[in-house]
C-alpha cells in the first residue's frame, strides 16, 4: 500500500503494466524526454527505451491513427492527448476509425488502445485546455469513456482500460492530479467499468457527478450537512458503459437528484443521465432532476472561471431547493 496522488497512481499503473506486458507502450507529445506535461510518464523512457516510449509530433490525429495501426499490428498502445479538448484534432481517427474498427473488420481486429487525456477547469489554464468534451466522446459508438476521480480508481481503471480489448478514453481530472493522496495497493488490481461508486451517503437527495466535479459535490454535501440536509454523492466514473441500475438504485430512496457537470449545460452527459433516470426511475422520482453545469458559452479566461464553472454555491443552492421542494 502506498499513499499516492492521482498522477502518481497513473504513473504506477503505466509502469507496472509495461513491466508485466512488453506489448504495452506509450506514445504522445512530450511523453518521453519531458516525461509528460503533467509528469505522468516520467521515468518511462529511461526504463523502457525509445521503442516503447515514443515522443510524437503535435498532431493528435497522427497519435490516434498510429495507435490504431500499432494495435492492429499486435501492440497495446497507451496514447496521451495533452489536453482532452485537443482531441478534436483527432476526431475522425477516434470516432470513425478507432471506435469502428472492430465492427468494420467484423470482429477480426480489436482496437486495444487506451487514450489518456487530462480534462476540466478550475486550474486557470489558457483557452482550449479546460474544455470538458466527454459527452462528445461518449457519443461515438465503439468507444468506452471512463473518468476516475480518486487515486485508487485511477490506477485500477487504467489497468482495466489497458487490458480491455476495445478502445477506452481515459479522462483524468487535472485539477485533482496532485490535490490529495490516498492509499493505493502496490499489487495488481483492476476496477471494473460500468459500476458507480458511492462517494458519500445521504438520505435527502443524491448529487451525481464524475471526474473532478465529484470532489466539489462532496464538499457541497458537507456544507449541506451543516444545514441539516444529507446529500449522497454518486461518482459515475464510467460514462460508457453506464451503470444504469446503480444510478436508479441511488436515486430511488429519496427520489431527488442533481446532476453536476463541468461541461456546458446543453447536450452535456448530464442530459443523458437525466433522460436515463426519467426512463428507468420515473415512478421513483419525487421532484424534477436538476442539472448544475457551466453556462452555454465558451470557457472564459481563467480569471472568470469561477463565474462559469459549477460553483459550490450553485450546487448547494440547487440541492437545497430540491431537498425542500
Amino acid at each position: 500500500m502506498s499513499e499516492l496522488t492521482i498522477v502518481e497512481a497513473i504513473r504506477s499503473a503505466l509502469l507496472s503494466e509495461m513491466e508485466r506486458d512488453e506489448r504495452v507502450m506509450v506514445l504522445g507529445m512530450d511523453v518521453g524526454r519531458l516525461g509528460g506535461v503533467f509528469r505522468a510518464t516520467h521515468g518511462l523512457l529511461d526504463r523502457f527505451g525509445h521503442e516503447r516510449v515514443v515522443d510524437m509530433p503535435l498532431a493528435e490525429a497522427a497519435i490516434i491513427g498510429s495507435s490504431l495501426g500499432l494495435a492492429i499490428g499486435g501492440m497495446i498502445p497507451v496514447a496521451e492527448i495533452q489536453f482532452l479538448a485537443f482531441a478534436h484534432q483527432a476526431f475522425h481517427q477516434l470516432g470513425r476509425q478507432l471506435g469502428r474498427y472492430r465492427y468494420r473488420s467484423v470482429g477480426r481486429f480489436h482496437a486495444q488502445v487506451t487514450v489518456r487525456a487530462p480534462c476540466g477547469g478550475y486550474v486557470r489554464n489558457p483557452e482550449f485546455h479546460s474544455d470538458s468534451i466527454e459527452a462528445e466522446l461518449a457519443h461515438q459508438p465503439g468507444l468506452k469513456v471512463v473518468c476516475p476521480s480518486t487515486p485508487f480508481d485511477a490506477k485500477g481503471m487504467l489497468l482495466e482500460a489497458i487490458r480491455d480489448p476495445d478502445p477506452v478514453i481515459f479522462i483524468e481530472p487535472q485539477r485533482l492530479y496532485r490535490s490529495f493522496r490516498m492509499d493505493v495497493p502496490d499489487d495488481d488490481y483492476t476496477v471494473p467499468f460500468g459500476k458507480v461508486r458511492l462517494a458519500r451517503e445521504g438520505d435527502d437527495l443524491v448529487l451525481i457527478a464524475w471526474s473532478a466535479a465529484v470532489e466539489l459535490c462532496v464538499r457541497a454535501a458537507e456544507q449541506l450537512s451543516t444545514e441539516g440536509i444529507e446529500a449522497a454523492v454518486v461518482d459515475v466514473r464510467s460514462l460508457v458503459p453506464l451503470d444504469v441500475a446503480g444510478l436508479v438504485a441511488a436515486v430511488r430512496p429519496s427520489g431527488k437528484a442533481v446532476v453536476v457537470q463541468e461541461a456546458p449545460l446543453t447536450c452535456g452527459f448530464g442530459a443523458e443521465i437525466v433522460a436515463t433516470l426519467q426512463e428507468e426511475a420515473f415512478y421513483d422520482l419525487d421532484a424534477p432532476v436538476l442539472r448544475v453545469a457551466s453556462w452555454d458559452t465558451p470557457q472564459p479566461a481563467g480569471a472568470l472561471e469561477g463565474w462559469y464553472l459549477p460553483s459550490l454555491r450553485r450546487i448547494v443552492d440547487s440541492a437545497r431547493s430540491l431537498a425542500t421542494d
Partner: protein
Amino acid sequence: MLTNVLMPRLGESVGEGTVSKWLVRPGDQVREFQPLLEVDTDKVNAQVPSPLSGTVRELLVEAGAAAAVGAVIALIEADIKPADAQPSSIGQPDVRTSGTASRTKLVSPAVAAMAETSGIDTGQVRGTGSGGRVTKRDMVTAAAKLAEAPKQASLPVTVGPDDELVALTRTRRLIADNMARAKATVPHAWQTQEVDMAGVVANRNLHKASFAQQEGFGLTYLPYVLAAAVAGLRAVPTVNSSFSDAGIVVHRRIHLGVAIGREDGVLVPVIRDADGLSIAGLARSLNDLTSRAQARALTADDLTGGTFTVNNSGSFGTLLSYSVINPGQAGILTMEAVVDRPVARGGLIGIRPMMYLCFSLDHRVLDGLAAARFLSSCRSWLEATNEATPIF
C-alpha cells in the same frame, strides 16, 4: 429562503460604503445581476448587482447611510428554483412558479406510485414540501406509521346513497386517534365492585341546600367519588403510574383527570394535586373545569398532566361501563348510576342506594389483586362516609 445581500468591497483599502441610491424597493422582483443599488466609497461609485433572482424583501440600510464591508444591506427571497440551475436560453419563457403558491394537490410520480401501491390517500398526509406538497418522504413516513399500528388503520367504508358522511372535527379526530392507540397498545382488564352509597347520600342530603346557597352551584356525588379515588390511589400507589419499556413510572403527585361529556365529544380536564383538596375543594375545582369546558374556555394546561382518570357515566344512567384507559395512565375508574336496590344485609332485605364502581386497568402494570385492593379502598372510603364526614 432569504439570501443576504452584503456590502461589497469596492477597493482593497475600503472598509465601508455609502448607499447613495436604492434602485429597487421591497416587493420588487429582481433578476440575478440586476443592479440593486448604487454605492459611493471614497474611491469609486458603483452599482451592486443582485446575487440571485427573487423578490426583494427588505432594505436594511437607508439611502445616504454607510455600512461596513460585509454587512447585510438587503434581504432577497429566492425564487422557488434557483435561477442558476436553469441557465436562460434565448426565447425561453420564464415559467418559474411563485414560492408561496399552494401545491397541496400536486403529486410527484413517486408519490402517485406510492399512493397506488400503499392505498394511502395523499389528501390525508400532511405535506412538508414546498407549498405544502406531499413529498415521497411524507409518504414513506405515513406508510411506516401505518405499518407500526396496523390495528389503527380503519377499514374502508363506502358511503351509500342512504348514508350521510359527517366530517371529523378536530376533537373527534383526536379522540379517535387516542382511543385507537389506547386499545391497540394497552392490554385492558376490567373489574367492578358494588358500593352501598347510603352514607354518601345522607352526607350530601345534609349539606345540599347550604352548599348550593354558599357556593352557587350544586353538590353532586362526583366529588365524593373523586375523594374515594384519591384514597384508593394513596392506598395502592402503583395505580397512579405510567407503563414504559424502561419500567413502571409511579407518580408521587396525584393529578386527577375527570371525563366531561360535551355534545361534540368528551374532554378530560385535570384537577392538580387532588389529594390536597377537601370534598368541597374537589367540587369547586370540578365546577370550574365543567363550566369552562362548556364555555370552551379550557386551556391546553387544563387538559394535560393527568395521572389517573375518573369517569362519571352514571350521570347518563348507565349501570356498567368498560371505559378506555387514557394512554399513559394505568387505569380509569368509572362511577355508575346510584340506584335504590333491594339488598340482603344481616339476613334482612333492605332498600339501599347502590352504585357499581368499574375499573379498567392496564394489565401490564396491575394484576387482579392490586386492582381489587384499589377498588376495595375506594369502596371502603365511600361506605365509611356518613353525616359526620366533613366536606370542608
